[in-house]
């Protein structure tokens, strides 16, 4: 879901950042829209925090510029930018109460009492810690500190809220709950959120758009569906969700599809979607495990699947049961392939050694572009 207004909140233009001789951010070009929930996703050390800190004013870009609502803030100090940050370790002021923490920014802006109290209380209600305003910051649970840190930033009505892995210190259950809440708070207030995480599920769940980074470079920007469904390169594909990749020998190109004929008479096909594939060459093809149907070999004969569906036979070598899902590992002519089935009433009851047929719809597989960055 993208916002209808196309106003730009943030622009990175050719931003580079070095620490000594090490380049942490490489030629970053990025536009983030007003009111958007934007996530920067990538593995540890890829430069997410550095990018966020350049937005907040804690690091200065070595070259390029950063625009906030059109004005250049590349070298503005942190206190002169209309952005606020939620830190990974919250960083509440330990010598102040919850109220004092949340009121801090407003007091600096000379907001006086009836309004000050009203706005602080209102924000404490939004993040659901009303009633704790007299508590010392040291006497809060992790989840409460998290909420207070959020209120302390949001109460200033920043143009952009920056969040650096704000949920990483919480336990799984609380994290899931806060993901939903954060998303709904963002929706309610309409503030632009820039959210840093290395958790791909979190990014897919919460974001309007996601930027994927690796080794200081932004590889792809898109909606969760675009990123997951049509990753720009092998790294993105592998980082966002799990993936099967195999080499497809191009025996035939027809109707925008490359087809590989298998020894048993079946075939495997991939939509080229603009990619080029010369006959007799080999291309790299990927498919998500959950897009693959697994059928017992005897039953498979009758089920021809959709017209043009790819089919390949194999033997089950492992069954990983995780409650709602089961992942099968299957040895095929294409190599070892993982397929995921929901454990509903139609789930096949397979054990290691069973002969199966894998099948998938024509648009399920995609050509995997070579990596943009080695690594």
């Amino acid at each position, binding site marked *: 879901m993208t916002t209808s207004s196309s106003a730009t909140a943030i622009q990175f233009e050719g931003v580079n950042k070095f620490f000594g001789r090490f380049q942490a951010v490489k030629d970053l070009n990025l536009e983030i829209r007003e009111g958007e929930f934007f996530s920067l996703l990538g593995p540890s050390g890829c430069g997410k925090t550095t990018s966020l800190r350049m937005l907040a004013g804690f690091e200065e870009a070595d070259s390029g510029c950063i625009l906030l609502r059109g004005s250049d803030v590349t070298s503005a100090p942190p206190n002169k930018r209309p952005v606020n940050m939620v830190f990974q370790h919250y960083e509440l002021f*330990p010598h102040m109460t919850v109220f004092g923490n949340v009121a801090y920014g407003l007091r600096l802006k000379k907001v006086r009492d009836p309004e000050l109290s009203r706005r602080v209380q209102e924000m404490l209600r939004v993040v659901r810690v009303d009633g704790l305003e007299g508590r010392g910051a040291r006497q809060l649970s992790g989840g409460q500190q998290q909420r207070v840190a959020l209120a302390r930033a949001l109460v200033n009505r920043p143009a952009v809220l920056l969040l650096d892995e704000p949920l990483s210190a919480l336990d799984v259950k609380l994290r899931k709950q806060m993901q939903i809440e954060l998303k709904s708070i963002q929706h309610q207030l309409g503030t632009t959120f820039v959210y840093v995480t290395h958790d791909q599920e979190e990014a897919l769940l919460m974001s309007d758009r996601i930027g994927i980074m690796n080794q200081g470079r932004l590889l792809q920007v898109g909606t969760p569906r675009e990123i997951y469904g049509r990753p720009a390169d092998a790294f993105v594909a592998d980082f966002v969700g799990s993936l099967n990749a195999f080499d497809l020998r191009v025996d035939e190109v027809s109707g925008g599809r490359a087809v590989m004929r298998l020894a048993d008479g079946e075939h495997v096909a991939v939509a080229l979607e603009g990619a080029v594939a010369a006959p007799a060459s080999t291309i790299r093809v990927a498919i998500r495990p959950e897009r693959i149907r697994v059928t017992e070999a005897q039953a498979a004969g009758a089920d021809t699947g959709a017209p043009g569906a790819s089919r390949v036979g194999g033997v089950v070598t492992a069954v990983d049961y995780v409650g709602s899902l089961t992942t099968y590992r299957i040895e095929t002519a294409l190599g070892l392939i993982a397929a995921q089935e929901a454990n509903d009433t139609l789930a096949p009851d397979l054990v290691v050694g069973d002969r199966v047929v894998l099948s998938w719809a024509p648009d399920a597989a995609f050509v995997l572009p070579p990596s943009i960055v080695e690594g």
Partner: protein
Amino acid sequence: MAGGSGRPLTAGVRAERGRLLVSIAQLTPALAYFALFYVGPLLVLVYISFLTFRNFQFVEPLSFNNYANVVTSETFRVLFSRTVLLSLLSAVLAIAIAYPFTYIITFVFPGRSRSLYFLILVALFGGYLVRIYAWRTILGVEGVINGTLMTLGVIEEPIREILNGPFAVVVSMVNFLVPLAVLPIYAAMQNVSPGVIEAARDLGSSRLQVTRRVILPLVLPGVLVAFAFCFIAAAGDFAIPALLGGVESPFIGNQIQFQIGQTSNWPLAAAMATTLIALVVLIVAGVALVARRVIR
């Protein structure tokens, strides 16, 4: 305590008591040491201060006579005021130097703070008397300051008042106290998380506002400890006033030394010492109270 009131102890209270007993047990060696080497001598001192000095002996009956002597004597009152005022001044100056120094080594050059801190420690453990004598040569009639001023033609005669007066006492005292002040302030500043400072900046504080609203309140306990260290050390000192203060500016410590060494009047010396301790404790407590009010 509440056990006899008929209400059964909750598990929580019992656990609390158990923990208290354990922690007392763990503390026993420290408490014993403290009692033996600090509280004991202090009690002896207080006891002696109530004795009577007669024919170079201290005998019972116990009385307040020594204290009456201390409080009413004009000489002693002058000594006490000078001791307290110069010590306060030295402690405040020492903190005024130590605070920015520590601030700079912690927040401006965080990479170098350990080595700079080590340098300060070396200064602290460098010879105390040696440093006092060094100040004599710097401040003396033929010292570095007078020498320089005469060479430059600023003065024709050496200034005698530099040495042997309150100025020399305070300068040397501050030099002696600065490392003592750096120690607790440094420890307190180490506990200020850099993230908290960034949060304050992010919320709109200038660097100065961060210092005033975040760093100072968080470091205040360390500053108060520094003040207590410095003030106590200064008020109890007698070597610096003896060697640099001349005949004009002795401290109460010099009088105590005189009463013990020359006249052997231990009870009077003990009364002076006890009065000094009480005075110092009151002033430190007062300063702490006021500081906590002002800096929040």
